[in-house]
């Protein structure tokens, strides 16, 4: 279906959409009737108070959790009942709220592990490790693009927190995803890293769809084309940042009275 | 005659009751296992050995010191509990910071050593232990002849299980225990002596196993092998119930006891694997166990 669409890169179109998404935990409803459209070449922010259900929405979209109700469509295909690894192979890749790297592999290996699958170099148990060197060029390019070239051979566990987040973004990009889901990519990051990551996100979003959760409102304001505000599992408001931040309900529920 | 599933109702009731008796042992043992696992994250492979030690302690108290069943019901768990506590203090403790598998391997070695020692000292065929005079004999329930002692086992084990559950769920000590399970360092920083709590817990778990051992002594041969036979089944019970759930362990213990009892009637050849089969099915349908939370 996507193949037949005569759209050029850069033109916004819906690539990921959810309808009537709901998730119950026991008696508690964490996500309730959420409709969401994520567009190609757009940065879409999902914000809301703590416990609003943002991470849960991510888990539902990536199928790490099964929705109680609702449907999810990725690139025109229904993925409501698809396994998470399959979803990832279809081009929907996420990062985690708590940083997720392979701690005892080097930076290079971290990126190469991500490259192995799309390059069909994952199941070969009869080939030597040197077979992976074919991926080095691509890996180095990714490492450079996030500014990790100095740490190329460092063990991931020895990186600082911010560098780990950046590495995670690099491995995510390695899959060449069509849709990127980023859960608080800047949380706990120092100021200079925030700027760099924002730049990376802006760059990748030119040819991809990005959905991100973020509490840093200045980032949201400058980076995101579209904002969805979630509260108690439901959509409270939607629109561009200016419109949303004017909404008095959003101000009381989330932003508070002062300027952030 | 009323029939149920093709067998007389009477026989059915009888088997149900017997299943409950077996379940009493499973419940007591899996309770201790679940407590130790819940707090220490250690799979106590030595649990079977401690059960055996309880039975042997009762036997030794009787044959060497003339101390009978009733005092042994208190003394044997106390002794085994202290022994367990000492072991935790001196050895097991060093493994907490490591992968939980090391705890499993250590207690496995411990079980081999204890069992080997008793086999060396007392042989494998076991020692006799008489039913206490007060509980000798039986009553005819109409559908079966119930030895009084077996009735006592059900009542007593139920009381112990519920008592333990109450302590853990409803008291301050219990809330320390539960909290320390989640985040021992933080609880310690609140001013609670967590290392002591851990020792206490291991001792308690071992004592529960020993208590089951004393209960078992008049029914089964007091044999060095009695523990290793039952421990694997109890593991399966705990997997089915969901590790770390106290009530889950208790209920599953009784339930599987009954399931096993009924299998002995309908298809006796499968009675020793029925629990494993149930485990496999539960794993397929509810990987976290019947009462477990998702890890």
């Amino acid at each position: 279906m996507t193949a037949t669409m005569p759209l050029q890169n850069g033109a916004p179109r819906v690539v990921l959409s959810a309808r009537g998404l709901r998730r119950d935990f026991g008696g508690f409803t964490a996500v309730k009737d959420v409709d969401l459209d994520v567009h190609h070449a757009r940065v879409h922010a999902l914000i809301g108070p703590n416990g609003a259900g943002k991470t849960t929405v991510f888990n539902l979209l990536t199928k790490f959790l099964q929705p109680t109700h609702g449907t999810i469509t990725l690139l025109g295909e229904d993925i409501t009942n698809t396994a998470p690894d399959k979803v990832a192979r279809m081009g929907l890749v996420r990062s985690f709220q708590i940083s997720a790297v392979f701690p005892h592999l080097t930076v290079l290996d971290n990126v190469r592990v991500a490259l192995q699958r799309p390059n069909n170099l994952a199941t070969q148990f009869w080939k030597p490790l040197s077979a992976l060197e074919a991926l080095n060029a691509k890996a180095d390019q990714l490492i450079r693009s996030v500014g990790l070239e100095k740490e190329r051979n460092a063990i991931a566990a020895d990186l600082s927190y911010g560098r780990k987040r950046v590495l995670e973004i690099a491995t995510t990009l390695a899959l060449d995803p069509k849709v990127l889901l980023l859960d608080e990519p800047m949380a706990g990051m120092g100021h200079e890293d925030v700027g760099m990551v924002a730049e990376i996100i802006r760059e990748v979003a030119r040819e991809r769809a990005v959905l991100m959760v973020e509490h840093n409102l200045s980032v949201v304001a400058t980076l995101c084309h579209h904002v969805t505000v979630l509260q108690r599992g439901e959509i409270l408001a939607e629109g561009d940042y200016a419109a949303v931040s004017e909404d008095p309900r959003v101000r009381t529920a989330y932003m508070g009275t002062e300027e952030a | 005659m009323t029939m149920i599933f093709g067998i007389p109702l009477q026989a059915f009731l009888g088997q149900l009751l017997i299943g409950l008796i077996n379940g009493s042992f499973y419940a007591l043992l899996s309770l201790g296992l679940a407590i130790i696992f819940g707090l220490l994250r250690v799979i106590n492979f030595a649990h079977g050995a401690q059960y055996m030690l309880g039975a042997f302690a009762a036997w030794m108290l009787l044959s060497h010191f003339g101390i009978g069943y009733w005092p042994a019901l208190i003394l044997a768990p106390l002794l085994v509990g202290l022994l367990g506590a000492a072991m935790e203090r001196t050895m097991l403790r060093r493994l907490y910071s490591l992968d939980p598998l090391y705890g499993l391997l250590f207690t496995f070695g411990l079980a081999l050593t204890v069992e080997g020692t008793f086999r060396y000292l007392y042989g494998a065929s076991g020692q006799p232990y008489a039913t206490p005079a007060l509980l000798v004999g039986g009553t005819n329930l109409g559908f079966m002849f119930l030895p009084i002692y077996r009735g006592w086992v059900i009542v007593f084990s139920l009381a112990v299980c519920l008592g333990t559950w109450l302590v853990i769920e409803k008291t301050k000590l219990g809330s320390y225990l539960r909290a320390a399970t989640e985040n021992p360092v933080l609880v310690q920083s609140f001013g609670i002596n967590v290392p002591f709590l851990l020792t206490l817990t291991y001792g308690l778990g071992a004592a529960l196993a020993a208590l089951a051992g004393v209960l078992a002594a008049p029914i089964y041969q007091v044999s060095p092998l009695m523990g290793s036979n039952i421990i694997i089944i109890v593991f399966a019970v705990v997997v089915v119930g969901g590790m770390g759930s106290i009530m889950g362990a208790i209920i599953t213990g009784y339930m599987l006891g009954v399931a096993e009892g009924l299998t002995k009637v309908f298809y006796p050849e499968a009675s020793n694997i029925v629990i494993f089969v149930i485990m496999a099915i539960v794993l397929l349908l509810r990987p976290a166990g019947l009462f477990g939370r998702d890890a």
Partner: protein
Amino acid sequence: MTLTLELEKQKERSPVVAQTIFLGAGLALLLLAPLFFYPVFLMKLLCFALFACAFNLLLGYTGLLSFGHAAFFGGAAYFTAHVVKEWGVPPELGILAGVAGAALLGAIIGFFAIRRQGIYFAMITLALAQMFYFFCLQAEFTHGEDGIQSVPRGHLLGFIDLSQSTNMYYFVLAVFVISIAVIWRIINSPFGMILKSIRENETRAISLGYSVANYKLAAFVMSAALTGLAGGLKAIVFQFATLTDVGWQMSGEVILMTLLGGIGTLIGPLFGAGLVVTLQNYLATSEFPVTIITGLVFMACVLLFRRGIVGEFYNSRLGRKLGFEYRHKH
């Protein structure tokens, strides 16, 4: 957190040379061993060493502790013994039948076990292996506690007479060396890299699109198949298959061998197996009860030298100088 101990990293050229010399010397020793030691004993040692190495493929490199590997070892022994004795197939085919049987069994047990991790995994494998034990106990073809006895060793490829101890020994040695090479290749391959990353961070591996369950299952089946190879060989060497090889004590023993030799080291299990087998043989004629000693060794190992013999060596000054590395991670 996974059980993660790891070796292997050759940084510079010279250590590689030193290690090659080490390996060569080891191989030469094994080639000459029958001149000094009892061949059946050596063969037993190699069978168990292979068993432990196959087990270590799972524990050391994917972090999965199976407490049910005896099912594959003993099961393969039964399969091999049965087809060789009752159907009269040649030994090499018999062993392959054992391998296939063990792999199938591994696929079945693995299917259930990989649904859980860590300790649960260990307990599930234990329980399922125990089911298989009961099956073997009751099945007709295993001959209950008599076991399958007097299995003919036959002729390898139709012309090498395996009833000659020396022939048999070199056959076992060849299989052993090839298997170790295979294990080494699996660990150091693109596939091995994915296994490693799954052990490091399973959720992240899923989100990168890896069907983690399939990888784990594949590793489990490989380990089971190699274990089956050891079991099938053992049936031919000893000419029988009995219940002792399927019992849970055997699963415990292989863990001990691996732990003693060094989890996550390629050749550690060889030393571990050597030590355990020698110990059992020695204790058989001594006053000490075997289980007590085994238990004590286990406890001491866990408390005092978790790296195992080879791991401790790698970690020693000499070992490091030779370029070995043993990383112990939590």
